[in-house]
Each structure stands twice: as structure tokens, then as C-alpha cells.
């Protein structure tokens, strides 16, 4: 009995894999534009997906850069970067313009 149930579940898994792969292959042929982005929005919603809202390439793109020159948002303890063409080498750059965390005020 146990073996029969296991065989049934295994068959169901394989059927699901086959069906899902077929749907994905069909979706991948419905490309939009030249970069071949899949038009799977309807499928994604049906699958219960929620957009995280965090896939912001611009946010991550500047990570790893050591030079804030030209990135804006210069900040230093006194007059910021006012009147300066570049904050490179001046110290105190914050590319997002964020204030100094209050933890330092403790």
C-alpha cells in the first residue's frame, strides 16, 4: 500500500514537472523585444508570486565603487561639499545623502 502511494506521488511529481516545463517553454517563445525577456506576468501571478520591490539595479550598481566623485550626495562634518567640484579626497561622502547615524551621538 505504501509503495503504491509512493508510486502515485512520484508519477504526480513527474507529470507536474513535464507540464510545468511545457508551460515555461511556451512562455519563453513569447518573447518581447530584442532581449528575449519572458512575458510571464500572468503565470507569475497565478503561481502566487509577489514582486519584492527590491530588485533595483540602480541601487546596487554603485556598490563596490570607492570614488563618490560625480555620484552626488556629498557630505562632510562642516560645510559639506558646498563650493567643491568633487568630494573625492575630501572625506565624508555619503552617496545617498544620509545623515550620520545617531549611534555616534551616544
Amino acid at each position, binding site marked *: 500500500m505504501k509503495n503504491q502511494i509512493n508510486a502515485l506521488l512520484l508519477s*504526480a*511529481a513527474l507529470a507536474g*514537472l513535464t*507540464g510545468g516545463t511545457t508551460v515555461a517553454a511556451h512562455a519563453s517563445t513569447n518573447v518581447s523585444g530584442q532581449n528575449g525577456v519572458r512575458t510571464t506576468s500572468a503565470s507569475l501571478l497565478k503561481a*502566487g508570486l509577489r514582486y*519584492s520591490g527590491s530588485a533595483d539595479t540602480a541601487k546596487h550598481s554603485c556598490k563596490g565603487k570607492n570614488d563618490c566623485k560625480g555620484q552626488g550626495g556629498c557630505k562632510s*562634518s562642516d560645510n559639506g561639499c558646498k563650493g567643491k567640484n568633487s568630494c573625492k579626497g575630501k572625506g565624508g561622502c*555619503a552617496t545617498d545623502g*544620509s545623515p550620520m*547615524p545617531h549611534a555616534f551621538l551616544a
Partner: protein
Amino acid sequence: MNLEAIQRAMAAAVLQPLTANEGMRAKTVDGRAMAEVAASFIAPNSRLNPFERLEIYNRQYWLRVLGSLAEDFPALRAVVGAARFDALAVAYLTEHPSRSFTLRNLGSKLVDWLKAHPEFAGRRHALAMDVARIEWAFVESFDSAERAPLTPAQIAALDGSSRLGLQPHLHLMVLHYAADELVLDLHKREKRLTSEAGVEHEEEERAPVNLPKVRRRATWLAAHRVDFSVYYRRLAREEFLTLEALRQARSLGEAIDAGFAESAIPERRRAACVQEWFGTWAELGWICAADGEA
């Protein structure tokens, strides 16, 4: 001083947290005068003395890493509060300074660190842990590798003893709270507070966030990437356990067994569930060949 000694002295100074006035501390961790340390390997110029020249790098480092961490964990910041998050970030980054060429990896140890330091999360520690898990999973899913999903020919060759792989960008989480909706709401809030010019509304941003009531109940979640965007999806407990078993390189038959361990799903409904789950996973491209197999 040789080069290694200079590099170590520089790193030690730069990695030391700033003072309340955003300046470099007057003393090193081991109690020496920072001005003397700076003068030992930095020459003054016409405008700045050695201390001031070194201070530039100390400030630059901390402003950058704190800003980056806050950017990756906006919901955690809202949950614990801005002031507490600032203290948390300084303590975490003091213990785990940037070690990578990319700031993307800065928060890689935050979840484990927060687990060991509940005092930094306050009374919402369990919720904060869940939120941090979700936000780190979003970072991971954003740029983890993507492998080719199983082909029909590969599927046709499967049996109960086969092992399967999962997409590297698929991240599975088990949470104490249904915190996914909260994270989504807080990310929307974060975007609203950031103007198109990238200037944050500081006062509103630091104001306490009135969080909606979040129910404490076990929640299983998957974060992954589709067409260069990160998505998440709630999973049934059995679905999560099956995927987790597949990730642990258990066979297909064993994974299905593991998924239904202590399950409340009646046996007559299980085949339909399994077919639906595997169908969805295949459609989303989650299932690949096992590691080391083509």
C-alpha cells in the same frame, strides 16, 4: 614601518567607529594617541595634519558602509527603529567590517549576528530576525547564479532515486511571523520617502513607524528571481520541506516522503498537491539537474 605595518595601522584606524561629532577617535582601541599613530606613517600637507588626513578615510568608510547597510535592510530599520538600527549597524560593522571588494556582501552575516545579539533588536527580536532574513534573501536572489532548468529529456529519465538541483537564486526561508507583507509595505514606504532626486525626507524617515499587527505564525517563503527582478512566494509547509530535502541532495522519492512527514494533508489529496507544486516549480524554472550533472 614596512608596508604591511602601514596597511594594518591604516585599517585599524579606518575601521574604528567615529565619535559623536563624526570625527576620528582620539585614542586607538589599545589606548594609544591616534595623533601619534597617524604621524607615524602619514606626513602633513599644507592644510591638514596627519590626524586630519587619516580622519578623512575613517569618515568615508563609516558613512559608506552604514549607508549601504541601511539601504539593504530598510524594513529591519523600520521594525527596530532608526536610532536602534544605527546602534545595531555600528556594532555589527565593528564586529564584521567590510571584507569584500563589493559592499553587496556587507550584510551577509547580519542574520546570524542578530540572532546572537537580541539586545540590539529590542522587544521585536523574533520579528526583526524574520525581516532581516527576508531582506538578505532578496539581496542573495538578486544576483545569485542561474542554471538551466530541467529539459523534457532530462525529466523523462527521472525516477524515484533521481536527485535534483534547485536554482542557486532560489532562497527558502522558514519564519516565525508572516512578515513578508510587512517587508513589502515597508519597502514601499522607503521608496515613497525617497524623492526622484534621491533626497530622503529625513524627519519623516526617522519618525517611529507604526507597524501593522503581524501575526506570529509559522510561514514558509521562497525568494527568487525572474527576468532580473526579485519575487517571493509563500509556500505550504509540505512544499517547503520537499524543496528543502531536494536542496539537501535527497532523492526525489525521499524528498516527497520528507515533505509529507507529519502532514495534515489527507492522503487522497496529496497526489494533486504534488503535481501542482512540481508543475509550478518547473514553470518558474526552479528545478535543475543535480549539482555536478549537466
